């Protein structure tokens, strides 16, 4: 079978303008009910399938519950469902496709297009040492996450507005907080950890650390999202 949008499945008829790939109509749309969707008993295949999926279809009043045509259509669907389940099980039992070579190739390409961000001053104002924003941000996120119940997301490091390029920087870090601690206390712990790391580990003068709690998560259970 070719991968061709005009080759409909057998038995669906190839009437012009009824290309199954392009047509955006819905089988439940009254305008399109009928033709090949109707079983010999008069019910539409779509309704029978809807029953199967738990959304009751429109069984006509008095339609036999054990209608042979509906039953046969459902049996076909179950055969397909069964095959799907077996395939999914095979997927789970088969080692996932090895993506490590792929990941290495992707990262090789990504490293040709890094976005290191701006250079930020290291050390004292009169010195000439610099660190790129992404490297500083990574170290500061790590510092924030030394506080129990904290996950760091966005971390922006920039010279304070209106100051010179070698002026102390301002850090804005967004964190998700575990729900076990009072937030002001947690935010203060993050601020202190970040300021401490900037000063001692990185050697970057910081004028201000803003901590923004953007989400709460339940440390004991599932993620909120």
């Amino acid at each position, binding site marked *: 079978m070719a*991968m061709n949008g005009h080759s409909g499945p057998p038995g*669906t008829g190839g009437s012009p303008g009824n290309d199954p790939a392009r047509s955006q109509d819905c089988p439940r749309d009254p305008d399109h009910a009928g033709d090949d969707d109707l079983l010999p008993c008069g019910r539409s295949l779509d309704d029978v399938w809807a029953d199967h999926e738990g959304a009751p279809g429109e069984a006509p009043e008095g339609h036999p519950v054990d209608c042979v045509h509906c039953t046969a259509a459902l049996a076909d669907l179950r055969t397909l469902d069964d095959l*799907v389940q077996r395939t999914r099980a095979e997927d789970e039992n088969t080692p996932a496709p090895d993506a490590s070579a792929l990941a290495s190739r992707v990262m090789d390409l990504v490293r040709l297009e890094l976005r290191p961000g701006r250079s930020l001053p290291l050390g004292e104002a009169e010195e000439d040492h610099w660190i790129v924003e992404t490297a500083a941000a990574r170290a500061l996120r790590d510092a924030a996450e030394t506080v129990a119940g904290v*996950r760091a997301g966005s971390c922006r490091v920039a010279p304070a507005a209106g100051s010179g390029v070698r002026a102390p920087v301002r850090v804005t870090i967004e964190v998700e907080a575990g729900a076990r601690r009072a937030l002001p206390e947690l935010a203060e712990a993050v601020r202190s950890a970040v300021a401490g790391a900037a000063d001692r580990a990185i050697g970057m003068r910081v004028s201000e650390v803003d901590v923004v709690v953007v989400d709460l998560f339940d440390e004991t259970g599932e993620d909120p*999202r």
Partner: protein
Amino acid sequence: MPGNGDDQGDGRDADHTEGGGTAGPPDRLLAVRAGEGDEAAFEVLVRRHGPELLRLATRMLGSATEAEDAVQESFVSAWRSLPEFRGDAAFLTWMYRIVTNRCLNQLRSRRPVTHLDAVPERETPGHEGSPVRDAEAGAALRELSAALEGLSPEQRACWLLREMHGLSYEEIADTVGISPQAVRGRMFRARRALMEAMAAWR
């Protein structure tokens, strides 16, 4: 969905974990960090979701080699777009969209040279093992893959995202850029075609 970034609250040590399990920071945080230029965060996402995306692309394209190229290009394009990624959708759903569109474009560009009686290109080297084992373990898979080739690329995309990757109709609608009703229509036709293809072999 596997690897969706669930975390037991002690993910900070997992920042530097190698490889793709589900441990480590949730996707949304990694995506934010990657958007700010942290390529290490991006690598975690690539390793975490690469296998799942490869499965999708392989079934879409019917070729492991082409699938690797498609997924590789999708990740590189994601890296470029991440600064604009606002996290409205989950990272994996966003990747499904990029990979699906890339596969669809590739399949559409193939169409003109595909004849009705052409034998579909089958790549088997990587999958060839013991024929007996293949016949048993991979039977369902191969029977289904053969039937899938009879679907239009658009039907196949909807069907795979729903049945193999567990997306909702709404998520699929976002992913392929059509209405949920249209997704429903494609699913209907895909199922009917698959059932008919399999009935023909019985």
